[in-house]
Each structure stands twice: as structure tokens, then as C-alpha cells.
């Protein structure tokens, strides 16, 4: 296998994981836009989606797509509940204590999942069978195509939602100016709950499409969530396009680094690159406004 096809392989693998990071990063951005807090339970939505899909598939014996749908809806509901808890204290609490609430929630979700579904990893069948596709000596599994396709669909859906529907526009208004949004009669609290629900559902989708490749386990969420957070920051927190770019860049760099330099420093490379980018562009690659934490 020559170097070019090796590099192609790293890039393809990178895009596959990068797409997942992008979906998670998008979830971060959605909530950040609505309430300006970082939801550190985002990774657990990914885990819950994957685990629920496996569980529903095995326990209820329904077809795969039905299991997937049920999982997405349930996780969306869980997200809405977390949103309710957050807005409950939104005005009285500092952003930091809200972040701690999301940390508590993430520990809680992880504990519940461990209890319900055990401590071992679980497999989810691939969406379609078939052999790996060969591209110039590099290999692509069919599930990767599903991941690319579904990620693209999700991104398009979010775009249309924000740009073309009045509901989405209202949500954007909340992001830009809460007070103003309230004045024109938008129910800000409802919007916040919806933002949580949508971002949870997005996370669930990410978990479900990646589970056939990576397996599902109760503790898969933390690292995926962190990488998603990393991607969101890289692209510029609150920017949809930035989330996608950040995810893909992170995924590709990680795999190139692991392949060409050293797999031992795989994660280190990702974080070093992120630090360097932050030092050069302190608000991320596509962060337009200065995203101050407060």
C-alpha cells in the first residue's frame, strides 16, 4: 500500500468520525445560541441514542428504522427535560452553575445507562450489508456512506429550519437578543426547551449512525462529547457552518496524525492543533462575534 492510498485512507476515516463530531458540535452550538451555556451532557445524548436504539431493537424486536426513530424521540424528550431544569434557574444562576447542572446530568445519565444496559459495550447492526468499497487502495465501509448521507441531511435540515421556518427564525431571534425576542411576543422559555430537545435528538442521531462502526457503551459519550465540544470551539462556538468544518478538520487531523506521526499521540495531536488555532484566532475559525463566556 503506497503512501497516497494510506493518506486517502486516513482522510476517509477522518471524515467518518469527523462527521460525528460535526453533529455533536452542532448540538453544542444550538444550545449555546439559545442560552449561552455549554451543555456538557451533550455527549451523553449521543450515548443514550445509541444505547436506546440497541435496546429497543433487542427488547421490542421492531425493525431497525423503528428502533432508531423511537430512540431519537425519547432522547429528544430527555433533552427537553434537561432544558426545563436549566430554564428553571436561568435567571438566578451564573452560567457556571448551569454548566455544573449539565455535568451532574451527564453523570446521572451515565449512571442510569450503566444500570439499565450494563457495563459492557453492545453492537448495533449496520444499516445495510455489503462489502467495503475500494477507492484507490483505500477502503470505505458502507456504514460510512450512511454516516456521510445522514450527516449531510441533518445539516441541511437544521439550515432549512433556521432559515426557512418561522419557528426557526424565532429561535434565532432568541439567540440574538432575548429581551427583544420577548418584546415581539416570542416565548423564550419554550424556545430554550426546544433547543435542548433538538440538540439532544441530533446527538442521538450521531450516536445511532456511529454505533454500527464503534459499538455502543454507557461510557462512550464523554470522549465523543469532548471531541464535539472541541470541534465546536474550533469552528467558532455558535456557528453552524463552523461546527461542521470544525468536526471534519478535527476528524481528519486526528487520523492523519495517528497515521503519519504516532497513534500514541492521536488525541494529543488533535488538542495541540486546536490550541494553536485558538492562539492564532481566539474566537475559532468561523466565530464572528467575540464569544465571551459570560
Amino acid at each position: 500500500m503506497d503512501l497516497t492510498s494510506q493518506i486517502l485512507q486516513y482522510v476517509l476515516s477522518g471524515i467518518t468520525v469527523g462527521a460525528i463530531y460535526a453533529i455533536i458540535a452542532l448540538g453544542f452550538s444550538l444550545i449555546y445560541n439559545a442560552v449561552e451555556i455549554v451543555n456538557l451532557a451533550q455527549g451523553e445524548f449521543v450515548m443514550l441514542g445509541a444505547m436506546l436504539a440497541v435496546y429497543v431493537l433487542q427488547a421490542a424486536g421492531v425493525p431497525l428504522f423503528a428502533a432508531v426513530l423511537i430512540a431519537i424521540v425519547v432522547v429528544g424528550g430527555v433533552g427537553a427535560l434537561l432544558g426545563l431544569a436549566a430554564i428553571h434557574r436561568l435567571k438566578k444562576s451564573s452560567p457556571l452553575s448551569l454548566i455544573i447542572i449539565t455535568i451532574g446530568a451527564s453523570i446521572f445519565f451515565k449512571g442510569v445507562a450503566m444500570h439499565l444496559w450494563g457495563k459492557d459495550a453492545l453492537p448495533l447492526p449496520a444499516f445495510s450489508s455489503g462489502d467495503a468499497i475500494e477507492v484507490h487502495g483505500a477502503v470505505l465501509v458502507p456504514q460510512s456512506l450512511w454516516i456521510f448521507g445522514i450527516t449531510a441531511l441533518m445539516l441541511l435540515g437544521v439550515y432549512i429550519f433556521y432559515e426557512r421556518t418561522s419557528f426557526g427564525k424565532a429561535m434565532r431571534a432568541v439567540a440574538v437578543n432575548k429581551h427583544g425576542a420577548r418584546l415581539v411576543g416570542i416565548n423564550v422559555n419554550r424556545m430554550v426547551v426546544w433547543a435542548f430537545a433538538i440538540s439532544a435528538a441530533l446527538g442521538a442521531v450521531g450516536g445511532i449512525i456511529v454505533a454500527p462502526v464503534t459499538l455502543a457503551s454507557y461510557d462512550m459519550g464523554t470522549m465523543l462529547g469532548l471531541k464535539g465540544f472541541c470541534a465546536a470551539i474550533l469552528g467558532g462556538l455558535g456557528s453552524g457552518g463552523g461546527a461542521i468544518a470544525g468536526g471534519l478538520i478535527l476528524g481528519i487531523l486526528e487520523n492523519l496524525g495517528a497515521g503519519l506521526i504516532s497513534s500514541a499521540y492521536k488525541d494529543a495531536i488533535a488538542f495541540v492543533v486546536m490550541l494553536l488555532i485558538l492562539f492564532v484566532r481566539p474566537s475559532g475559525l468561523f466565530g464572528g462575534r467575540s464569544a465571551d463566556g459570560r
Partner: protein
Amino acid sequence: MDARSQSPRYHFLAFPIVGALLAALPFALHNNYYIGVMVFIGIHTILALGLNLLMGYAGQVSLGHAAFYGIGAYTTAILTTMLKWPPWVGLACAPMVAGLAAYLIGMPTLKLKGHYLAMATLGFGMIVKILFVEYYPLTGGTSGMTGIPPLSLGKLQLVDDRQFYYVVWFFALMLIWVSYNIVESRVGRALRAVHTSEIAAASVGVDIAKYKIQVFVLSGVYSGLAGALYAHYIRFVNPDPFGFMFSIQLVVMVVVGGMASIWGAIAGASAITLLSQVLQRFEDYEVIVFGAILVLVMIYMPQGLTKSIVDLTARRRSAKPSKPEVLP
């Protein structure tokens, strides 16, 4: 409320009382396990103090503070096992190395704001932990380093839990005192100004960058000392205790205890350390219970334990709602 809890007289009274209580405690506890828990509360208090200065007074969140803790632990481990330096020298070098690391990482990162700063510190923490794992010749990799010598006073080796308890709390109380003096000094006022509004602080001539880096280094020094104490207590170090989850736990300690409150650091460190011990009996459920408690505490006491309790007692005493907080 805030002003009173920080007033000099309040501390003047509290300090000897807390000191005397801590000195007497081992005589009341006949169980080495409880002493061991107290040792860890002491170590966590030192960590929380440093992070509290950074978060509460300078308003900078760090999600990678476990790295400084680890750097401290590994520094003394390497110096005392490989170079055979005396443990006290290792203990003295650890905070310096951790402080230097904080300076080097702080210079570029502290220019970042809010979540970007948090993310940068998180990345730094991850990188440091990977270095602990991968730099095998120096750190022993994931299997860690054994054979770290105990601290000693003259001929007396401090291997007993009780002896170590006094060592740890001596340092903890000393740092509480130091922190208190910093907070009450010009630097402290400048820090609070930075926290309240950076622009306003800058406009009255506060050199923000300088104060921020000073506090960052200081909190690195605290964490390094805590790490060295850990290393000489357990006498074994490996990378696991210095990962992301512990960084998060430290932030939780600070916020639960109450930010911008010296005593909040003790309260938070004690609450989180004790909670995880008390929850032992729940076995598989302990994670769930811990998460639920964390969420509930933050929903009902968003200001943290110390302030909420001070609030509550103030309300009882005056039978009137406490005055709304007025910022200076």
C-alpha cells in the same frame, strides 16, 4: 452578606477555631480510614483553594487543573526515585515546576476568553495526561512509578496516617491564610475588579494580563503542592488520577463550595470527598445518586454551599429577607 463573610474580624475568629478543631480531630477519630478521608479532604482543599482564586476572584475557568496536580506528583516522584533527592526537596520543587508549567501555558491561553479559555485549558490537561502515559522512560507509562519515599522529620518517617494528616493540614491552613491575605490585598481587589468587568478594571489602570497570569501561576503552585503531597502519601503515581474527570471534579468542588469564598474551598472539597465515600453503600446506584445530588444542589443552591448557608442563617437571625447583593 458577602462583605460580612469576608470581613477581617470574621476571619480573625474563624482561623484559630478551625485550626484548633483540626488539630484536635485525630484524637476524636480512632479510625485510620476517617483520618485517610481527612487527608484527602486536605489535599482537595489545597486544590480547590487554588482553583477558587482563579475562578472566583479572577473569573477564569480551568478545565485542566488536574494536569498541575499531576505535574506536582510526577515532579517529586521523579526527583525522589530516579535522582534520589530528599523528599522535602521534591516537595519544594513540585510547586515550582507546576507553577512554571502554569506560566508557560498561561501566557498564550489567558488571552482567550470564556469558553475558549476553558477549552484551551481542557486541551492542555489532555495533552499533559497523554505525556504522562507516553513518556515511558521518565514516568513509567500507565503502570506508573512505585517506591516513592515517605516524607520524614529528622529520623521520623511520616508514614502514619495521623502524622501525614498534620502535614497536609499544616499546608492547607497555611495556604488558606496566604489566600486570605491575597484576597484582602490590592491584588485581591484588582482581581475582583477583573471579575466584575475587565473593561472597567482596565480603564482605571489595572494591568489585567499581569494579574491574571499571577493568579494562574499561583493556582498552579497550589495544585503542584497538592500533587506532591498525594505522591508522598500514596507513594505511587500513575496517570489515571490526573485526567479530565478529576479536573471536572475540582471545578465541581469550587462551584458547590461557593465561588469567591476561601472557606467555600474547604466546604466544597469536604462535601464532594465525603459524598463519594458516603455513597459507597449504594454500589451500582452511587453514580446515579451523585449526579442527582449535584443537579439538585446546583438548582437549589446556585451560589454554592457556603453562601446559601450563610444566607439561610442570616435570614433566620434577622427574620427579614437578606439584603440584595450590591456590587462594590
